[in-house]
Structure formats: structure tokens, C-alpha cells
């Protein structure tokens, strides 16, 4: 009995201390398995069945779906110009910015989803879910993001360090329209 309780404690601490999320999920599944056998030894088999069904099956799948959603970093790139010439400064800047974003994503284990549109900033804010909106006009590149976004500060710091252009770059902070999370 005490043996299982000790193991329970060890796994609870381990799942908190790991730096990789997916490893923490494995630890949590083991934790719920141990939890269920502890319920069983305390003469509560119905609770043990509920723990077995919920803890080790549904919870893991939910965590995995959440991790998948967390990993995608959605960047919208809008410009008023419909067609960008191949060797203009705009195409050059764009590819450099994209490379910087990809490098940032590689460091943070994220996946960049670049979407090019001709929609305006307001339209994107209203209709799509985004992490970052990049506006490029003739002279400036504006990088818009929400302060409540969990990568916003990191990406601004990273771009300040690693992305320098001839044209001016401006950073803007959008307020969230739903009014939550700030």
C-alpha cells in the first residue's frame, strides 16, 4: 500500500519537473494508473473504474489535442499589393522575415503557418484566429500581435535581436476584442 502511495508521489513530482510536455503526459498516465490501483486497495472499485476510464484514456487524448493546438503558430501576412515582383525589396524582406520566424519556431518547438492575404487588418481580426499579423506597406513593416498571446513578448525580443532591415519595422500591440485574458 505505502509502496504505491510513494510511487504516486514520485510521479506527481516528476510530471511537474519535466521540461518536455509529451513526457509529462506519459508520467500523468502512469500517475492516474497508480491512483486507480490505490482506490482499489482502499475498497472503492467504482471510483477505480471511473479513474481508469477518464484518467488514462480521455484525459490523455484531450492533452494531446491541446498540445497540437498550442504548437501551431498562425501568422497572417497582408499587403495591399496583389502581386509582388520576384526580385523587389519587398519579396526579399518577406523571405528574410519568414526565415527569422521559422528559426524562432524551431527554437520553441512550434510550427509556423504562414497565410498570405489581401484582407485588411480589421477583417483578419474579426474573422480569423491569429497569433501574429504582419502588415507591409510601401515603406514600413508593421508587426501586430496581442499582448495576451503567450509568445508575443518572446517573438518581439527575438525579432529585435535577429531581424534588421533597411526599411523601418514597427511593433504594435492589439487589444483583444473579446476583452479576456488581459
Amino acid at each position, binding site marked *: 500500500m505505502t509502496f504505491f502511495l510513494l510511487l504516486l508521489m514520485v510521479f506527481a513530482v*516528476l510530471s511537474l519537473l519535466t521540461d518536455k510536455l509529451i513526457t509529462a503526459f506519459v508520467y500523468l498516465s502512469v500517475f492516474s494508473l497508480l491512483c486507480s*490501483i490505490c482506490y*482499489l*486497495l482502499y475498497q472503492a472499485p467504482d471510483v477505480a473504474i471511473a479513474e*481508469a476510464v477518464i484518467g488514462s484514456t480521455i484525459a490523455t487524448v484531450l492533452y494531446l489535442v491541446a*498540445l497540437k493546438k498550442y504548437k501551431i503558430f498562425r501568422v497572417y501576412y497582408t499587403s495591399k499589393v496583389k502581386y509582388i515582383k520576384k526580385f523587389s525589396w519587398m519579396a526579399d524582406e518577406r523571405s528574410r522575415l519568414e526565415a527569422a520566424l521559422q528559426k524562432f519556431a524551431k527554437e520553441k518547438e512550434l510550427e509556423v503557418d504562414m497565410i498570405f492575404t489581401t484582407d485588411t487588418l480589421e477583417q483578419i481580426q474579426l474573422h480569423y484566429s491569429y497569433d501574429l499579423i504582419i502588415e507591409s506597406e510601401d515603406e514600413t513593416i508593421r508587426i501586430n500581435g496581442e499582448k495576451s498571446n503567450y509568445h508575443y513578448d518572446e517573438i518581439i525580443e527575438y525579432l529585435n535581436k535577429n531581424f534588421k532591415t533597411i526599411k523601418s519595422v514597427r511593433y504594435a500591440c492589439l487589444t483583444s476584442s473579446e476583452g479576456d485574458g488581459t
Partner: protein
Amino acid sequence: MLTILFYILSVLTLFSFGRIVLGPTLWDRLLGFNLFSSKIILLIILYAHIKHLSYLLDIAIVYTLLGFTSITFISRFVGRKGDI
């Protein structure tokens, strides 16, 4: 006799536990988890037999039917590089 077997199995879970904690890659951890869950099922069946509580076998059935899903989903997630 069966009680001794119960204790031996409890100690044997420690080895798969070690594989989960030490395992350098995620696959080792998953393998350890699989071994661990099968040993836990054996323990439940033994306990039900020792205490003459046949309704505890239901939990063992639920485990064998559902326990593999979390392992399958995690390995699918890793194998497809973040796509379920």
C-alpha cells in the same frame, strides 16, 4: 503463496518504473508504461483472487480494453510529428 507472488509482482513494477524515469527517449518511456500497465492488470487479478472479490475483475477488463488507447494515441502523435 499467492501473497508472496503479489509482493514479487509489486517489486517487479519497480523495474518498469525505472525504465519510465531513466529512459532516454520517449519510446522507452512508452514501453515502460506499457509494461507497467500490464503488471498492474496482473496485480488487480491476483488481488481479486486473494480477497475473493470477483467484482474487481471488472476493473481489470476495463483496463485491458481501454488502457492501450492512451499509448496508441501518444505513439500516433509522436510518429506523425504532432498530428493525431
